[in-house]
């Protein structure tokens, strides 16, 4: 079994989600997860590509799946896709190629034309799934050097990680990330908007709509007393964090709340330096001691 790391480009690791990649690498190093980058990966054929041409979108994703089979040295290849959209699209492609011969046949033929082959052995995994189910929370607990000391954390799963093609958690009431927070010594906040849409690309196109969806999430998390929110998708993080000031200006009633990637919070509990976890890339600074001080003062 070999893990092949697929960074992903749209809304991504080399761009807005750079801190996600940095912190994920640091956490994987700490957990001793052997992995290599998928060579010459291409865009997954994300949701917007599908709106223009679905068959080509499946073609794009299938190239990655086929490349993974070619690169894997021992056992079935497992693609590690940190971006929720990439995770969903590659899973969907695999499923649809299986289910609909109208899609599977032409795509397999196209791959053969280009000198590739997809047998269907590649698995697409989310880093959260790997950390919780492959590595296990016991190992995570053992590595915690600076426990979160009851920091109230709202876990925001976003849409595409838990539905509809993923199998590692419930689609409506996911708990994986909350269990992880507990293992790190934090206090998971129970809130109902865990999987509600953050607005996605709407923030760029019809801004009023996108900002309102993000506002609802921020407002509800704060109403329930969350100190920080953690996400697992670079797009959600950008929407909720970078636009926080703009939301506050147009709606009001939002106090600044740090939005972290779950890997950043993990790294912080493992005692990894802030620089390595990309905390300097945040718009809303995250300072654990300061937040705790505030919480104690409020009590």
């Amino acid at each position, binding site marked *: 079994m070999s893990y092949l790391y697929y960074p992903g480009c749209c809304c991504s690791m080399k*761009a807005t989600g750079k801190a996600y990649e940095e912190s994920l690498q640091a956490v994987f190093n700490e957990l001793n997860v052997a992995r290599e980058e998928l060579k010459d990966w291409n865009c997954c054929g994300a949701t917007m590509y599908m709106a223009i041409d679905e068959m080509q979108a499946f073609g794009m994703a299938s190239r990655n799946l086929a490349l993974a089979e070619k690169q894997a040295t021992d056992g079935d290849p497992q693609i590690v896709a940190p971006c929720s959209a990439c995770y969903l699209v590659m899973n969907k492609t695999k499923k649809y190629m299986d289910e609909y011969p109208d899609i599977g046949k*032409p795509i397999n033929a196209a791959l053969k034309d280009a000198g590739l082959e997809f047998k269907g052995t590649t698995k697409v995994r989310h880093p959260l799934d790997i950390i919780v189910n492959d590595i296990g929370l016991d190992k995570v607990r053992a590595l915690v050097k600076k426990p979160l000391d009851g920091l109230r954390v709202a876990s925001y799963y976003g849409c595409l990680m838990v539905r509809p093609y993923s199998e590692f958690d419930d689609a409506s009431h996911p708990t994986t990330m909350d269990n992880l927070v507990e293992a790190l010594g934090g206090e998971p906040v129970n809130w109902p908007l865990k999987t509600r849409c953050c607005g996605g690309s709407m923030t760029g196109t019809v801004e009023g709509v996108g900002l309102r969806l993000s506002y609802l999430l921020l407002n509800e998390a704060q109403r329930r007393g969350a100190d920080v929110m953690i996400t697992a998708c670079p797009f959600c993080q950008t929407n909720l964090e970078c636009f926080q000031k703009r939301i506050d200006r147009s709606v009001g009633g939002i106090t600044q709340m740090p939005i972290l990637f779950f890997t950043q919070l993990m790294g912080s509990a493992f005692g990894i330096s802030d620089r390595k976890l990309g905390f300097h890339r945040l718009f809303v600074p995250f300072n654990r001691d300061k937040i705790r001080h505030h919480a104690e003062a409020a009590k």
Partner: protein
Amino acid sequence: MVWKGWSNIKYSDKFDSVFTAKMWKGWKKAKFEEELDPNFAEKIAQMPGCDRIYNCIQCGTCSGTCPMSVYMEYAPRKIIGMIRAGFKGEVLSSYTTWLCASCYSCTARCPKGIKITDVMYALKRFAIKEKMAPSKLPIPVLANEFFETVQKYGRNNEGMVVMKMYFKTNPTLPIRNLIMGIKLFIRGRMDVIQDKIVNRAQLHKILKSVGSGH
């Protein structure tokens, strides 16, 4: 924290006016049997993932769970009803399909297992093919820019794509969003160089032999 309620939320005025005008037009139009397209539902049902639209029981779970339905002129339940009734023009020229953020809540919760998100994708593609997509909305423009960039280079550069979209739809917006871009750039979260894959020939070969199907 005080719950401020829905009415306190301010929307962009521009979006609101375009939107209401469109809604008004749609509602005031009476339809006669001969104006409907009886084969419309069949055409949609042929697309992969859309085969179950005939199973719809019009329960409204999709509209209820949709975070965007408050902005749509026809919510997802109504869209399926309209597809089956043959309202081709209204469905394809509506904002609804483009407002779908593809969060898959409807697909996950539909009691009849209808893949509503796939139906929305199918409608988007159909609207482009029939040249009926709403021209004033930036969403199709963004989708097209994204499509062209990824097809050419194999990877995407979100900053460039968004910039191109702004220049094509509302050139005053880049100035407003420039500050955000600069802030992202300072923090190393924006790349100005287009990322490319090495074996572009292979990718183009795959895309060419897949063709532009649905």
